[in-house]
């Protein structure tokens, strides 16, 4: 098995693992970690696509690699917003849950 195929299958496994965690973990920070696992799995798929595209004297196709760099930055920005929201939510209330039932307030404000 070539390293690129191996990395691709690793990526697929990471996507599966992250997917499992994203759905099942109740804590939003754990969900965020799971999301990041999926993200790195997706980047690995880009990585093997780049590695397979070795041609014209390059050992890799530079386009997908550049996309991964952009992707990592965007994923970091996403994590930063999520962390800020999670911390603020846990400061404001005792619940860090996202369960809609907890937040359904029949006489809630939010009118304006």
């Amino acid at each position, binding site marked *: 098995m070539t390293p690129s195929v191996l990395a691709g299958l690793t990526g697929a496994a990471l*996507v599966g693992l992250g997917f499992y965690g*994203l759905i099942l973990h109740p804590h*939003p920070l754990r*969900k*965020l970690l799971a*999301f990041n696992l*999926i*993200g790195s799995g*997706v980047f690995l*798929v*880009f990585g*093997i*696509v780049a590695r*397979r*595209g070795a041609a014209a004297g390059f050992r890799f196709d530079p*386009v*997908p690699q550049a*996309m991964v760099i*952009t*992707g990592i930055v*965007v994923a970091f*920005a*996403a994590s930063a*917003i*999520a962390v800020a*929201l*999670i911390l*603020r*939510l846990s400061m*404001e*209330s005792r*619940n860090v*849950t*996202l369960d*809609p039932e*907890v*937040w*359904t*307030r*029949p*006489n*809630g*404000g*939010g*009118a*304006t």
Partner: protein
Amino acid sequence: MAELGTTTPGGYLLVLAILLPLGGMMLSFTPGGRWAERIALGSTPFGFALACAIAFDVGRSGKPIVYAVGGLAPPLGIALRADGISAVMLVAAAIIVAAAAFYARAKFATPEGVRESRSSLTYWIMLQAIWAALTIIFVGGDLFNLYVALELLTFAAVPLVCIDGRPETLAAALRYLLFALFGSISYLLGVALFYGAHGTLDIPLLAQRVQATPVVWTAAALMTCGLLAKTALFPLHLWLPPAHANAPAAASAVLSGLVVKGSFFLTLRLWFYVLPALPAEKIAIVLGCLGSAAIIAGSIVALRQARLKLLIAYSTVAQIGYLFLVFPLAAGAQSWSAIGWSAGVMQILAHAFAKAAMFFSAGLLAEALGHDQIAKLGGAARVLPLTFLTIALGGLSLMGLPPSGGFSAKWLMLQASAASGQWLWTLPVLGGGLLAAGYVYRILAPALSDERISLVSSPRRSQEVVALALTIIALALGFAPQAFFDFLEIGRPLAVRLP
């Protein structure tokens, strides 16, 4: 197809349309304070003019206008393209953003005596960012570029949901963010597979190269799932009602009217522009069924809401359902697919304008009465006639009664179902209309009663006029001439079945 990679004369307009809100956003951020508001408001007429110029250019040439960024044609470079529906969406977005900006001046003006306030700066920057992201989504020609635009849209929309900082809005924003992140990463995974299979992400080039291989099906499935989560199609709609109902009205209108349409627009791009050659009848039926379920479930839940804004938000879930009927009704290159296509675009537009107007009115009403409990609206129409007129006319479009854009959309859907022999799709269209009549009646009936009600404050006339103007556009769409529907066909690839 070669000409889709080279710049056409009007192409530079596309770059300007994108850079205007982006530049405005950065210019607002640096000095901050009142400048953010001034720049956002000041740039809306220019953005509207650019959108009109693009639409004019597309209409005049009868072909999509193209710009190869950096002078480098795809596949290595990125191309921007505006066809009929891009141009229409650009104009609609410019109008709704401008309306939201003028409506929001009352609530999000920087308060006296403060140099800069949290909610004002956030609102004005995010509004411009949403506008920029939508512009890229409407004219982007490269799937990865569109991914970055989708993320820009998410990061701009989420802070608007929790702009007033109450814990339940934070929870709603966080849930929205997680759904949206899942959606974009799933989309990105599909993008990776497309690139791995065909070595390009340019939409027309990809459309030439795709074949019905398992890799392409997997990529398409992943991207579709991601986009559905972002569009809040049933059963992935759970994040939408709390997010849209808890945001301030000036933000809800943009979120419900425009932001969900961004990811829906990409779903259209994916199936009708990237993959028209795929035999996707079954997928179209699945999407149609999910849409029908959304119409029925969303409307029934809307009927049971106690709060006006939640009712309107659930109505969005239902109206999004209609959009997905476009997949079975506009599929292929049949004689009737143009009718289905027109119906879908008309539904996007009619809902965008009507829903934005309804959220504006709901916001006015809540401010005037101090609450938005439907049960306590008795007699409100007497004291707030203009606001209720807007709600009634917007409701007309949601129900699909003539004359309105909503009526045109649903009528065209019925026509397309009849012409294509897919009679079953008439059931959700008609049923959804009846249910919509039910929930609009629930708002209007008590409001028109004789009870006495007192106002906490009286609404601003200018805000009422903005909301009314949007509903009038939603109604005027019902009179759209045939030329308008021909315009929507510009640049739509017709399916060429693979051997």
